[in-house]
């Protein structure tokens, strides 16, 4: 977890020059969401570095904690090669492996993320463009709908809010409000120091509630419809929704488990 300074929470000082955003939002300008879902498009792995400077300096390793590295696949944007970043920067089109082959190899189990590696994976949902965001040291990951943000600054602010509690210590109920999308969960959890999480197919623990409930239901309905319409088994399948239990003694709760091939 982040440090427990108990400091007054300040709005992070977003030095935009330090915000090295080099990513175009998926779907381009006018492309409909459905287009993005169907076609692979030009998939690319890019480093997106957001240098979020938290309130106080004197950072002892805060730099590492605060750096959110977001890599997005399946972006339609073309990117200039970056010259000012050594080592960790991924250059467009290098190494010269076709995206088809990259996707093929990345589909293998156990190769998608290493320890301390931060990765973003795009979930195709209906009209949203969800990406998974992680931060080093945070106990769980978040999902963010990129379509909700129209500028990089908005996205940057949103990400700062999402992870702010880990850097400033105790989350008061005010902090919790920032996390929860669904007010029902808030009612249940207000006053508790627990949150609901689930484990996704990559083995990452995700906070429950980021993907709107309607979307989740809609996705499952679409899947059932897809299989019915085709009249055959596609090879996708879901495991049953496990019972949600709030275990007062445990810190986190397994709410559900998806396993989509």
């Amino acid at each position, binding site marked *: 977890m982040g440090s427990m300074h108990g400091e007054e929470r300040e709005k992070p000082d977003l030095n935009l020059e330090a915000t090295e955003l080099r990513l175009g939002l998926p779907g381009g300008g006018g492309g409909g969401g459905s287009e993005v879902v169907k076609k692979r498009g030009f998939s690319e792995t890019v480093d997106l570095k957001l240098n979020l400077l938290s309130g106080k300096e004197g950072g002892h390793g805060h730099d590492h904690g605060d750096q959110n590295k977001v890599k997005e696949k399946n972006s339609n944007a*073309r990117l*200039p090669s970056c010259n000012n970043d050594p080592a960790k920067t991924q250059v467009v*089109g290098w190494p010269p492996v076709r995206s088809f*082959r990259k996707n093929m190899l990345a589909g293998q189990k156990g190769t998608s993320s290493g320890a301390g590696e931060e990765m973003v994976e795009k979930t195709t949902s209906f009209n949203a463009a969800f990406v998974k965001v992680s931060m080093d040291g945070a106990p769980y990951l978040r999902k963010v709908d990129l379509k909700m943000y129209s500028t990089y600054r908005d996205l940057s602010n949103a990400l700062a809010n999402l992870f702010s509690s880990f850097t400033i210590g105790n989350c008061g109920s005010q902090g919790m409000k920032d996390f929860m999308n669904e007010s029902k969960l808030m009612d249940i959890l207000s006053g508790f120091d627990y949150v609901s999480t689930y484990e996704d197919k990559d083995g990452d623990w995700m906070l429950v509630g980021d993907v709107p409930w309607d979307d989740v239901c809609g996705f499952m309905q679409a899947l059932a419809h*897809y299989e019915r319409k085709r009249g055959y088994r596609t*090879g*996708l399948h879901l495991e049953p929704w496990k019972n949600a239990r709030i275990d007062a003694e445990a810190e986190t709760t397994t709410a559900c488990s998806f396993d989509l091939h």
Partner: protein
Amino acid sequence: MSEDRNEMPEPEVDTRRREIPSILTSEFQSPSPDQVLENVLENVLLFLTSRRDRNAVSLVCKSWYRAEALTRSELFIGNCYAVSPLRAIQRFRRVRSLVLKGKPRFADFNLMPPNWGAYFTPWVTAMATAYPWLEKVYLKRMFVSDGDLELLAQSFPAFKELVLVCCEGFGTNGLAVIASKCRQLRVLDLIEDEVSDDEVDWISCFPENGTNLESLIFDCIEWPINFEALERLVARSPSLRKLRLNRHVSIEQLYRLMIRAPQLTHLGSGSFSSSDIVAQGDQEPDYVSAFAACKSLVCLSGFREIVPDYLPAIYPIFWVLDSVCDEGLQAVAATCKDLRELRVFPIDAREDSEGPVSEVGLQAISEGCRKLESILYFCQRMTNAAVIAMSKNCPDLVVFRLCIMGRHQPDHVTGEPMDEGFGAIVMNCKKLTRLAISGLLTDKAFSYIGKYGKLVRTLSVAFAGDSDTGLKYVLEGCLKLQKLEIRDSPFGDVALRSGLHHYYNMRFLWMSSCRLSRQGCEEIARAMPRLMVEVIRNENEQAKDSFEILYLYRSLEGPRNDAPEFVTIL
């Protein structure tokens, strides 16, 4: 697929004979000597299949030009913008087979903005009326729409083979039309295409009472297919020899298919891992016997998600491998003495990852596989010694492509540039026609290439060289150079100018993120009217004058009219 390996199958010879007036009729008229000569010539030229020979024949005189044009049945167009469909169909009247290539290769790696061009539509439209007996279409890096596929299926009743490599723009709708309307179809090969999902069960669209299918390749399709329909299709396709499945076919399903088609020679294995749908306690199918029963297998590929338990079933039959460690390569070197082509891809295609493959593997392969002709090798680190060893041990190398993934990486043992290694390759491999270089390279490497690489036709350069001199060496020295693709290297206008004498002999030159200026490119365009000089902007670039990519190619047609806004033709 690669011109350098000459993998193109021989086209069918047109055996129709021309009618000659019968000597026995009363209206005997002796044909003129010229006509006899042309008749004879045509019948002789029928047997000439190499396009290079045919090009030479057509230059002899007008009569030979005409005869050759009438008898050419396979039309190869290496750059779809070098010539227009109209010009092609006016000259060649009896084409049965078309090979057409569009975008330059670096477009595959996201270096080119989308919608650059290379549309199949004008070609299929022109051919629909001009070549009613068209049997075969092979497209590489073209934009093909569902409408194009529909027109193709409707217009050519004798259509037999469709091969699409690195294409995009179509979906399962288009495939369904091909499957259902091309009743003579023998080959449907979809190789590394981007296929969109229109939710159509195209596998079920093939003719019900039996097919002539010999080859069905669809491993690039990202969407599930109707497996029961596929099983039925395989059962009613007695000629099927090549089958490459996509990753949605599990090993249990693969087993069922192999049982039905023991005559397979090429198999792409799908996911080669178990679908979780198999209930616990089910009898595991006998994979070893299934593979053993396929006695004709010469080529295996795929293995997306290998579960190691299943591997022992396939040891005896390797030709092309995907991503193994040095130990694996040592095993290959020890057992595959006849190996001709090897491709080693990275499991983790990033610069800074820990790679399992290095100079150890390359050295082992060079010692074990002496007959090697073509190699593509991705690695994290390499030494000159290993590359030199390969140059000496494998003299038959025609294609040498080494990708050291770390940019500017020197020999990791000596710290020196990789100049000597690549120099040895061009010096010792006398048949080399295709070369891709990487790692830390100075102008010296290019001087070797220019001096010894006299047969090199295709050269790929990335993050290499010190100055204009490097490129000059290559442009002045490599007399057979046809395709030159360069990225992120310090070559500028002076170097560009040094190739003026050669650009009309080349198919294309690509330079991206180098040190060119607009004036330099304009100068070239002015000097060479039949050269199309395209400067391509990054979509985000505001300044009209700056550009990322120079792409130049010869053309008979003048600037193309389908160029998008971010392309300027000087």
